[in-house]
C-alpha cells in the first residue's frame, strides 16, 4: 500500500449510473487515485484521446456504444490496462470482454479496495520489477524482458502488457508447469481462486501472436488438468 504507484496515477472510469460513478470515484480517490469520469462510451473515447490515462475502468452496459466497443476502440490505439466491470458473471459477458481486449474484469457489486488492489497489481506488472534474465531465446522466439520486447524470427511482435507479463512469467522458468491459479496470482495479483477463463483467454490471445500455428502451439503448451508451461 505504501508504494508510490497510486500517486498521480490517472484512472478513466466509464459508468452511466451517476450514483455508482460518484461513490466509486470517492472510494478510489480515498485510495489515492486520480479519477476521470465519463458517462458514455463516446465521451470516454474522446476523453482517452485528450489526456494521458494509466488505467481504464469500463462498465459493459452503457447507453450508445457499449463497453465491449469502447474496449476494442481503445485497444486499437493503446496497451493501457483495461478492467471491465460487469453486473453478470456469465461466461458470455466475461469472455466477450476479454476477447474485446480487457486485461481483467470485476463483477458488481464492486469492492473498491479489491479494485484498487487489482489496479495496483496491474500497474506494477506494467513496469517489471525484478531483473530476471536479460535475454531469453526459445527457438524462433526471442524475449528481452527489461525492454519489453518480443520478436519472432527477428520480427518484433506487439503484445499488450498483460500478455507480455504472462509470457515472461512462463519464460522465466521454462518447462515449469504453472497452474491457472499460479498465473492468476503472479500475473493478475488475484487473491480469488477459480476463474481460469481469464488465463485461458489470455493464453489464446498470446498464442495467436507468438505461435506460427496457434492451433498447434510449440511454445505455450497446455498441460492437461494442471495448467500451462513454456516449452524450453
Amino acid at each position, binding site marked *: 500500500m505504501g508504494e508510490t504507484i497510486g500517486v498521480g496515477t490517472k484512472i478513466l472510469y466509464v459508468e452511466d449510473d451517476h450514483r455508482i460513478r460518484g461513490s466509486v470515484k*470517492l472510494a478510489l480517490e480515498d485510495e489515492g487515485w486520480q479519477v476521470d469520469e465519463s458517462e458514455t462510451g463516446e465521451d470516454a473515447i474522446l476523453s482517452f484521446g485528450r489526456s494521458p490515462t494509466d488505467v481504464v475502468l469500463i462498465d459493459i452496459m452503457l447507453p450508445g456504444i457499449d463497453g465491449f466497443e469502447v474496449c476494442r476502440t481503445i485497444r486499437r490505439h493503446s496497451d493501457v490496462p483495461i478492467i471491465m466491470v460487469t453486473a453478470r458473471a456469465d461466461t458470455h459477458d466475461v469472455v466477450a470482454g476479454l476477447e474485446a481486449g480487457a486485461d481483467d474484469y470485476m463483477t458488481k457489486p464492486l*469492492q473498491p479496495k479489491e479494485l484498487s488492489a487489482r489496479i495496483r497489481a496491474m500497474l506494477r506488472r506494467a513496469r517489471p520489477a525484478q531483473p530476471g534474465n536479460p535475454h531469453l531465446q526459445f527457438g524462433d522466439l526471442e524475449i528481452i524482458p527489461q525492454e519489453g520486447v518480443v520478436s519472432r524470427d527477428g520480427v518484433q511482435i506487439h503484445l499488450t502488457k498483460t500478455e507480455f507479463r504472462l509470457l515472461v512469467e512462463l519464460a522465466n522458468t521454462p518447462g515449469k508447469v504453472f497452474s491457472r491459479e499460479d498465473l492468476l496470482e503472479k500475473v493478475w495479483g488475484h487473491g480469488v481462486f477459480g476463474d481460469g477463463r481469464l488465463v485461458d483467454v489470455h493464453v489464446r490471445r498470446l498464442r495467436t501472436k507468438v505461435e506460427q500455428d496457434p492451433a498447434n502451439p510449440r511454445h505455450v503448451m*497446455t498441460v492437461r488438468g494442471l495448467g500451462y508451461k513454456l516449452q524450453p
Partner: protein
Amino acid sequence: MTTPQDSPTPLSVSEHRSVVRLQRAIQIGLRARIVFAVAAVAMLLSVVLAATTVTIAKNTLLTTREQALTTQALANADAITGALGSAETSDLQTLLGSLPQGGSPILLTGTSSGPAGTDPTTVSVDARYSIDTLPAEFLSSVVEDRNNAVMRFRFEQEPLLVVGVALPNSEASYFQIHQLGDIDTAIRSLGFKLAIAAFLTTLVAVGLGYWASKYTLRPLNRIRDAAESVALGQLDTRIEYADYAADPDLAPLVANFNDMVSALQERINRDARFASDVSHELRSPLTTLNASIEVLENARDLLPERSQQALDLLSLDMGRFTQLVEDLLEISRFDAGAVRLELDAVALVPTVEAAVRMVANASVPVEADPALTDVVIACDKRRLMRILANFFDNARKYADGATSVTVELHEPDHLGIILAARTVRISVEDNGPGVPEAEREKIFDRFNRGDQGGSRGIDLGVGLGLALAAEHARLQGGSVWVEERHDGAQGSRFVLELPMIEPIEADDPEDLAAVTPEEAETFALTGQMPAIRLDEASDQNS
C-alpha cells in the same frame, strides 16, 4: 379410505362415478381398452351369428325331415287301410315291419270310446315304444278327433317325431315314431364348430385391436416422446404440425402441444432474462452502497462514536445483504434453468488442496488417497470451489471451523457395479455439535439452518449456502450430504461426491462447456466415462 356407507359424507353418485371412471382409467390403459372393446364386439357378433346359424339350420333340417316323413306315413297308412279289413293281427305285424321308412310303426285298431267290449288292439313292431309313449293330447287328437297330426316330443330324453294318421273309413289309427337323434347330433356338432370359430374370431379381433390401437396411439407416443424431451430441457422440441394437419382429431392436439411448449420456452427465457435483469438492478445500488460505506470507513476516525457504531452495524449487514443477493441470484439462475456447466480438466488433488488453502482461514490438513494423486476429472472448478467454500463457511458458523479434509476414491459395491460409476468423495470434517439425524436432509433445504440456527448469534448467513452447494453438485452429476464423523468423534462430516468423468480434450475455454448437465448426469449414472490417469501430463512434467 372408508367405504361410502361408513363415511360421514358419502360421495354423490356423480362423484362416485367419476372416481370409478378415474380408477378404471388408472387400472386399464387406453390401448387395453381399445383391444378389449374390439374383442368384445367381435365376440358378441360371432356368438350372435353362430346362434342364428344353429337355429336356422336346426329348423330347416327338422322341417325337411318332418315333411318327408309325413308324406311317407300317409302312403304307409294307405297301404294299411287296404289290408285292414281282412288281415289277422299277425299279418298286420308283418305288414308294419315291411313298410318302407316306417320308423317304429304302431297300429291302433279301434278307439277306447268304441263299442263296449271291443278293446282296441295295438299292433307294434318296436318294443321300445308303445301307444303310451305318445303324449295324451296328441293321441286323443288323432284317435278321438280323427285328425292327422305331426308332433315332436321327447321320450326318455330322446327327441322323437310322431306322425299320426286316422285311417279313413275305420276306427283304426296309424302312428309312425321316428328318432331325431341324428339331427340333434349334427346340430350340436355344428354349434361346437361355430363356437370354435367365434373364439378364433375373437382372438383375431384382439390382434386387430392391438394393432389398431398401436396405430391409433402412434401420434400419442410421438407427443409423449416430445414431452419427455421437453422435460429433459430440450425446449426447442416441436412436433411437425404438417404431419398431422390433415387429421381433424390430431391437428388441434399437436397445435396445442406446440403452443404449450412455445409458451413454456418463452416463460423460461423470460425468467432467465428476468434473473439477469434483476441481477443488474440489484448489483448497481449494491455497488453504490458498498463504495459509500468504504468511503465512510476510510474516515471512521473522524466520526462521533455513535456514528461509528452505526457505521459498523451498517457495514456488517451490508456484507450479509450482499451475500444474500449473491446467493439469491445464483439460486434464481438455477431455478430459471439459466446455469451453464463449465467442465474443465481438473487435477483433483492439487485443486482441492489449492481450494482448501484459499477458503480456510487456518491451515487444514488435506488427506488424499494415493490412488488419486494423478487423477484428472472433468468438473466445474468454480462450482467445486463454491461447494467447498460453503462447507467451510458452514463449519465456521456452527463449529470452530473445519478440522480436516479427505479426498477418497469410492468404488461402487458389487451390486451396483453395472449401474454405478466410480466416484470421488471430498469430505470436510469439523468437531462441532454435529447434525442430528432428523436434520441431515433438511439442512440442505433453502433458508433452513437446522435447530441450532441462531445459537451463535452473529453472522449466521442466510441459510442458502448448503442449498446452493447441493445445486452446484447436482448440476455436475454429483451430490452432497452430511454424516457422522468416521472416527466416531463428535462433529459432522460434509461429503461432496462427484462422478469421475473423463475430461474432453479442449484448450478453448468456450469448448470446455461442451458437456451438458444431462450428459454429465448420464455419465455419472452409466459410468461410461471413467477418469483417466494423467500419464501424459506426468511425462510432460518430467
